[in-house]
């Protein structure tokens, strides 16, 4: 009936599944997650090694020029960069399974240690930005749908189109120039000032500018999509019936249309996670914010394979988990998507 049950064809297990469909669902999703991560890791592993450039350069820097061929081969063997790709991959996989993701070639410490202090910073920036982008996008969309072709709608759409096409890094530099250099209101880089990592106000001050460019470059696209979805919905017959009941425009949007576009919004939110994640990378690069997005760019640049693999696995897991969660939420919001199996009238 499903992957989970197929693989564990044990009678006892199938009994448990029949009694706990939720357990089966979780197991299924877990298998999907592991399978996708496995495929993803192969793809990234192969592509990273196919791209031109020498990872030893990251490890040895300029010293590479003074090394003989024998030394180079020895270095490769030591770092696990010798032999055919599939052998390298099996080695990597065997190590990764035990939680050992190898050394960062550039920083010469375990890749996990390079990333762990950065993850929190990125999560703070990413999650706050993500929530703000979508909250504001939905509000702007509702405002536009309420005043279709009105002043607010037109300004939001046209201003949005203009801002959307301004490159985020350029906008970031302008903001730094205005708010950090000229007005000296806000810090221009970092996640917090030295020794103040626990200071909330200091962290928020450092977040304002990166968040501004993340919101500014993402919100319009989503607001416009949600606005159009809402307007499509408003042309449907059930909205006419709601209107004929005597409901007002805003009541119709809040009570009827919004709920029916909710699956679209949730899907949009799920598939936009990589988009917003890449947005943190730009914000991190412009504001020199210590996060994994910035680190991923550096890792790719220096062929820091182990670090890159770990970063891809982390962001890949986030994307896949997000889409699984989005699908589960959709089932709750739109009951038509649920596979009920039996009808309600069955005895």
């Amino acid at each position, binding site marked *: 009936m499903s992957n989970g049950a197929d693989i564990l064809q044990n009678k006892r297990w199938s009994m448990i599944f029949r009694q706990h469909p939720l357990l089966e669902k979780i197991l299924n999703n877990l298998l999907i997650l592991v399978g996708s991560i496995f495929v993803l890791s192969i793809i990234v592993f192969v592509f990273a090694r196919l791209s031109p450039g020498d990872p030893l350069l990251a490890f040895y820097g300029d010293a590479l020029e003074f090394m003989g061929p024998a030394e180079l081969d020895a270095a490769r063997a030591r770092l696990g960069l010798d032999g055919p790709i599939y052998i390298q991959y099996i080695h990597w996989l065997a190590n990764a399974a035990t939680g050992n993701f190898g050394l960062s070639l550039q920083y010469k410490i375990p890749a996990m240690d390079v990333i762990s202090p950065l993850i929190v910073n990125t999560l703070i920036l990413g999650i706050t930005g993500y929530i703000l982008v979508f909250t504001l996008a939905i509000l702007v969309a509702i405002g536009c749908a309420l005043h279709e072709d009105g002043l607010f709608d037109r300004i939001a759409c046209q201003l949005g189109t203009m801002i959307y096409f301004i490159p985020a890094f350029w906008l970031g530099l302008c903001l730094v120039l205005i708010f950090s250099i000229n007005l000296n209101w806000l810090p221009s880089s970092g996640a917090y000032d030295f020794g103040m990592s626990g200071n909330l106000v200091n962290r928020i001050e450092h977040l304002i500018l990166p968040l501004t460019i993340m919101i500014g470059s993402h919100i319009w696209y989503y607001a416009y999509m949600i606005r159009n979805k809402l307007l499509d919905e408003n042309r449907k017959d059930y909205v006419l019936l709601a209107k004929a009941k005597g*409901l*007002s425009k805003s009541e119709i949007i809040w009570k*009827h249309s919004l709920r029916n576009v909710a699956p679209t919004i949730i899907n949009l939110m799920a598939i936009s996670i990589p988009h917003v994640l890449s947005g943190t990378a730009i914000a991190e690069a412009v504001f020199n914010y210590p996060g994994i997005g910035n680190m991923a760019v550096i890792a790719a640049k220096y062929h820091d394979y182990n670090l890159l693999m770990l970063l891809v696995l982390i962001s890949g897991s986030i994307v896949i988990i997000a889409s699984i969660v989005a699908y589960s939420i959709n089932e709750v919001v739109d009951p*038509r998507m649920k596979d009920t199996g039996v009808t309600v009238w069955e005895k």
Partner: protein
Amino acid sequence: MDVLLHLENLSLSFDTPEGEVQAVRGVDLTVKKGEILAIVGESGCGKTVMCQSVMKLLPGNARIASGKIIVDGTDITNYSEKEMRSLRGTTFSMIFQDPMATLNPTMPIGKQITEAIHQHRNVSNDEAKSRALELLELIGIEDPVHRYDLQPHFFSGGMRQRCVLAIALASNPKIIFADEPTTALDVTVQAKMLNLLLEIRDKTGVAIVFVSHDLGVVARIADRVAVMYAGKIVEIGTVEEIFYDPRHPYTWGLMQALPSLAKDGQPLKSIPGMPPVLLKPPKGDAFAERNEYAMKIDYELMPPMFQITPTHNAATWLLDERAPKIQSPFCLNQENKNQ
């Protein structure tokens, strides 16, 4: 009988990039308490637009060009959106053609009905629920207590149309606009729906404006019939007058095009041509182009309403005393009456 709704020379236009589309052109119409008035005509002749204009449900580019809408003696032509909202549901409500699309797919049926009840009356949730169950009972949904919490996708088309009717009836409206309520249903369900509408009318005394292009359905349900063509009412009368003594050539054409009334062995007649585009309606009678009895005056001057009996009016120059006398090509005799 009391006049509930009176349309006085109502004209309605849509402003489009191509120009002004005159969808309704000078309609005079009355709806009396508890009657069923059918409005028939081809697609695009303005039936739906006329009904929606009374409830002001039309999109923003529609505007009332002239005329008045009088409901229960009050002129509502210039009512604001807020004032209209208090009338929607209580004075008039509407049911639509496609029952699959008119219910919110994600909201339980019961909630969609109670929402309509709460909108106009300050009642507790329990009272609203018992009223909703009463309504579901009234429209013939079996086992309403179970079905109250189900979403529309558990219902068949006929059941959904009944639920839409329950919503329309929720706040005891005086008029229901039924916009082709049976078109999307199959024939057996259609018959049940018509019986239900008649039953509801008898029980609640609500007037029904029944928009349709199906003359068979109209003959069965209507008290009076208005025939619309190109945004105008061309003939209006009681159902007997329209079916047994039609006077307008367009009505003749419609009747002759009915397959059930066609003579054996002869090809089915149809009205040649297309209805005019209402961007620039013709100067004279809009039907003249397609009318085999058209006279020169039909191309020059719009015909006024000629009275045939106090209840029967038709707008065609053929009724003028100077026009040649033409025998109706269509005759519904007593044999056909039982069909």
